[in-house]
Every structure is written in C-alpha cells, then in structure tokens.
C-alpha cells in the first residue's frame, strides 16, 4: 500500500465564528488521509464531525493551521482546482428532485466544462462510466425524487466520482438508510477505495460495519479531541470504549460493537456447548439482572472459586438451544427453549 498522505492537516483549529465571537471546537489537531484507504469518522452528534468535513472540503475556513492537499495549501487553490481534487456528499436539503440521475451526475463534471456547462464526448462517457461504478446506471433516467434513500446516496456518490477527485468526503452517507442500504453503501465506498484508489473519509454512526470495512478510524470526542489510527490498533488500545462519555455504554472488543451496560446483580453459573450459545445465554441473563460466572476447566479468580463451591448459586448448562439444564440446590430442571429459560429465571429472581 502506498502510504503517502493525500490530504494532511497541520495544527488545524476547528470551529466557527458567530459574529465577532470565535467558537473553538478543537485546537491544533493533526491528521492525514492516505491513498486507497477508507477512513471512518466516529463520534457523538455535536462532536464536530460535520465541521471537520466542511473545513476539509473548504466550504468553511479553519480558524488556524493549514490543510495541505498534495503538499499545496487548500486555501491557495482556485475553486475549480479544488473541485477537481475533493468531491463531497452531504446530507443537505435541496431543490434537485426535478433533476434526473444522469443530470445530477453530469453536474459532477462542472469543474471541467465550459461557460454554459456543455458536456463533450469525454464528459458524457465519464458520466455513464461512474453511474455503472456506483451501481445506479439502471436508474439513469429516473428523477431524484423517485429514488429510494439508498439509491439517492449512490447517485450523489456517482456525482462525486464524476468530479474525478482523489478525495471524497461524505457526511453521514448512511443516515436515514435501511440496514441493507447502509451495508451496500459502505461496501461500495470500500470498493471504490480499494479498486479505484480513492481516498475516502466518511462520518457515520454505523460502528459495526465501519469496523469491518474501514482501514482507519478517526475518533472525535469532546474530551480526547481527534484520535487517528488503523482500525485494529484503535480497538485493541481500548480507545473505542472511551469514545462515548456515558458510563453505561460499553464497547465489546471481541464482537466490535457497543452494548448497553445492564445492572446485573445475582450470580449464576453458566456452561454452554459453544461460543454462540454462550454469547446469547449471557445476553439473556444479563438483561434479566444476573451476572454470569462462566464455568471453565479451571476457575481463574479466588472469588469464582469461592462462588463455585457454594451450592446456593443456580447453575445453567446449555448443550443446545432446545436442551438447557437449570440446577437450583438439589433440583434439576430440563428446559427446551430460551423462552422457558427466561420464564424460569424470572421466577428465580422474584423469589
């Protein structure tokens, strides 16, 4: 992989001016985007993701510092040059419902066309090509207002591709989409980075999919500012766990997802036939207020050893989802479904 930075921020201070007041969001942040990589920008709403993207696309000036595009300061480029190097996809209200898909994509050729925006043969060929690349060619003559949200996102991505820019910045391209369209959109962006060598940065709340497909993560939080790194490094260094300020939201590094921390009290011993059964049994028990002591060959902590000795703790053994044995004291009960297990432990709790 070529690791030259395509776009580079040096001591950039992000924020905006309100009248004479300077509102600083982040001071002196450094960042780089690399060719052929998909980078995901994560953070809570209001953390400044959109401000960062707008600053990088030069639709909003940074308060101090410089953003270099291939070594040249972004502010020194002409509008046309900038348009040929950075393409954007925003979620913005527009009047474009009356444009057909190919007309929208043709607007991506804006920085290349002449005074009246006439397309020459090369422009028209590019428009058709990028519609195929973005998987929207079958809707080329449809109006934007007739598209589904996912299709509209593809059309706007095709517009950005028509700009033939190295860099594509997207502000929450998966918001408002249903799950299949979210995954499809992210897969499309991943493919464009990998196969076409595009440098892509997108902000998103779809952490699970982003962790699978993004080469790098940019984490933006009020306490820690902007933290950048390769996805796996970021996960394994525990940075994702502190991305959200709430105590009750935890990151599960094993499964790459966030989960709500439920208050679990009474202990229960648990043994399961395989990892999947174990995972979902813990899920069920935690939700119902039990904390699980996982039975392994060897107990690891003195607490667990002590707990194991005590017979007052109920034990659950799961061989398959239809064969669950619940032991309380001397009594063994065989349950044939998770539904029955849920009922049984609820009754246990009320005792």
């Amino acid at each position, binding site marked *: 992989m070529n690791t030259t930075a395509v776009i580079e921020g040096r001591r950039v201070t992000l924020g905006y001016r309100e009248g004479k007041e300077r509102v600083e969001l982040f001071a002196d942040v450094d960042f780089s985007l690399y060719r052929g990589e998909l980078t995901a920008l994560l953070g809570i709403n209001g953390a400044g993701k959109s401000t960062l993207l707008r600053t990088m696309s030069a639709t909003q000036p940074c308060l101090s510092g410089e953003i270099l595009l291939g070594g040249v300061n972004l502010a020194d480029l002409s509008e046309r040059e900038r348009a040929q190097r950075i393409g954007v996809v925003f979620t913005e209200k527009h009047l474009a419902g009356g444009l057909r898909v190919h007309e929208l994509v043709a607007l991506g050729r804006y*920085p290349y066309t002449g005074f009246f925006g006439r397309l020459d043969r090369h422009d028209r060929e590019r428009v058709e090509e990028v519609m195929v690349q973005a998987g929207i060619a079958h809707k080329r003559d449809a109006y934007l207002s007739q598209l589904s949200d996912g299709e509209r996102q593809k059309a706007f991505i095709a517009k950005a591709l028509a700009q033939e820019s190295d860099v594509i910045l997207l502000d929450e391209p998966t918001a408002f989409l249903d799950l299949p369209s979210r995954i499809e959109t992210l897969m499309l962006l991943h493919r464009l980075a990998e196969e076409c060598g595009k440098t892509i940065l997108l902000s998103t709340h779809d952490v699970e999919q982003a962790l699978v497909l993004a080469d790098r993560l940019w984490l933006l939080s009020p306490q820690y500012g902007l933290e950048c790194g390769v996805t796996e490094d970021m996960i394994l260094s525990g940075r994702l766990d502190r991305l959200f300020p709430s105590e009750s939201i935890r990151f599960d590094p094993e499964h790459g997802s966030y989960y709500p921390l439920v208050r679990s009290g009474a202990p229960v011993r648990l043994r399961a036939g395989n990892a999947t059964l174990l995972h979902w049994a813990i899920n069920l028990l935690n939700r119902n207020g039990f904390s699980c002591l996982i039975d392994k060959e060897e107990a690891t902590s003195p607490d667990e050893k002590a707990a194991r000795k005590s017979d007052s703790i109920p034990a659950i053994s799961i061989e398959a989802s239809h064969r669950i044995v619940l032991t309380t004291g001397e009594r063994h009960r065989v349950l044939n479904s998770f539904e029955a297990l849920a009922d049984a432990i609820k009754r246990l709790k009320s005792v």
Partner: protein
Amino acid sequence: MKPRTFLLSAAALTLILILANLAWGSVKIPLDAVIDICLGQEVEKESWSFIVVESRLPQALTALLAGASLAIAGLLLQTAFNNPLAGPSILGVNSGAGLGVAVVMLLLGGSISGNGFMLSGTLAMLAGAMAGAIVVLGVIIGFASMVKSNLMLLIIGIMVGYITSSAISLLNFFSTTEGVFSYTIWGLGDFSGISTGQMPFFATATLAGLFGALLLIKPLNALLLGERYAANLGVNVRLTRVGLLLCTGWLTAVVTAYCGPISFIGLAVPHIARLLLQSSDHRWVVPATMLTGSIVALLCNLLCVLPGDLGIIPLNAVTPLFGAPVIIYVIVNQRKIQYFN
C-alpha cells in the same frame, strides 16, 4: 414535452399572440392589413398604420419584454432561495420597487436632484424602483440567514410587502390629489405606458437583464443542489448570489417603473415552464421561462383590451386570474411534482 418542441411551439405561439395584440383593440383592424403594415406596405386607412405602429406595437413589445423579465426574476429568486414558491411579488420586491416609485412621484414631485445631477420623469422613477427593490432584497437576504425555514421566509416577505404598502398609503395620504391619481393609475399596471421614443431604452435595459440571466445558467444548475454542493463544484457562491440578486432587482425595477407592480407572472410562470418541460435543467428552463413569460403577458394584455370600446381592464385584475390557479395547482399536487421533493 421535448425541450426543442416546447421552445419551437412557444416561439410560434409568441408570434401569433403578437399579431393578435396588433389586430385587437377598440379600433378593429383586419389581420391582413396588420400584416401589410408590419411588412411596411401602404394600407387603405392611414390611421390604422398609426395605431399599429405608434400604439399597439410598443404595447406588444412591452408585454413581450416585461413578461420575460418578470418570469426570469421569479425563476432566479426560486433557485436563489431554494424555494419554489418564491417570487418578486411574494417576497415584497415588487412593492419595494413600488415604494421607491411612490417616494419619487409623491414625495419628491417626480424628480431626483442632487448636486450637479438631475433625474426626472421615468428615469427618476426607475432609480427609485431600483433602490426600493434592492433594499427589500437586502432585507430578505438578511432574514434568510436568520430564518432557516423557507415557509417562514415567505411569510416575512409578505410582511415586508405589507410594510411597504402601508408606507405607500401614508405617502398617498400626505400628498396632492394629482400625485395620488397618477400613482393609482400606475399601480393598476399596464403595458401601454411606453412610447416609441422610450422603447429603445426599455428594450436595452430588459434585454441586458435577460442576457445576465443567460450567463448564470451553469451556476444556477449547481445551486439546485444547495450552496455547499455548489461551492464544492467550484461555484463562487457569493459572486453568483450577488449576480442573481442584481439581475432580479434590475429586471423587477425596470418593469415595475414602466408598467407598475405586476403580480403573479414572476411566481407562476417558472412553474408552467418546469411542468411542461418535466425538467429542472436551467439550460432549458431559462429560455422556456422567458418565452412562457412573454406568452402569458401578451395573453393578459389581449384580455385587457377585450372590452373594446368600453375601455381597458387593469392588468393587475387579469394576472391573478391565471397565476393564482397555477400556484394552487402546484401546491395541491406537490407530492407528484418532481422538483418539490
């Protein structure tokens, strides 16, 4: 409709309507005589030739240019404010220009004089109209940065219109009877106020504004996507905005100064053009809006002279009859109309 078909048939219809405007009026002139006059040939009555050349031809040309100008002003405002229900009359630009004219006619007695220069008559009215239109546009832009909702901005525009109207009423109250009379006549709106002598200036002024609109076609298309996308595509948004507003202000002011505050053409015509073209691409919508504006204005002028000997119907009594139903249709059907969604 195919864009080319639309433009060709609209151009043909415009020609037919010009001929109809020349033939129709309180004095009946046969169509073949009208055509002879247009071709510069002698006709049996000299008075016919005089009526057509000195009265009806300037009136038809005024309608042609004023219609195109107002319609384009409406289209530019709709794209500039990202709001299909914007227009010079609804945003108060018309009444701003009207107030400017009222100040000149009623307060200053029809002329503006400063150290060393003097504007009088129509030119003074034009200066007043331009100043009024630009001030109102400035106020609306100021509010647009504060009020994010398009609907609320329209209501502010209507309020600004009310304020200028009451300023005009107050001016009327304190001015002379003759002043009030001529202002009221002007306020009814008509296309017959421009003499053959004034035509070259009026034509140059409106054509310059229309030409300006043609220059804005490419950035207008990018602006359909909103300011941020436009800026990313390389549009100099600030410059384009200034161009759009100067163009709109100029066209509205020129037409208002000469023909009175004409409502609805600016608001309704861009919708007719977009609906018939089934497209938002300004490369077609701009010329189509110009032609449709001319057609509607010529048609309204024809209706005004319809009573023949009984007199002339005020223009502002006719334009809402066609314009308001178009807007109601558009609002009722907005779910089915592409550019609303």
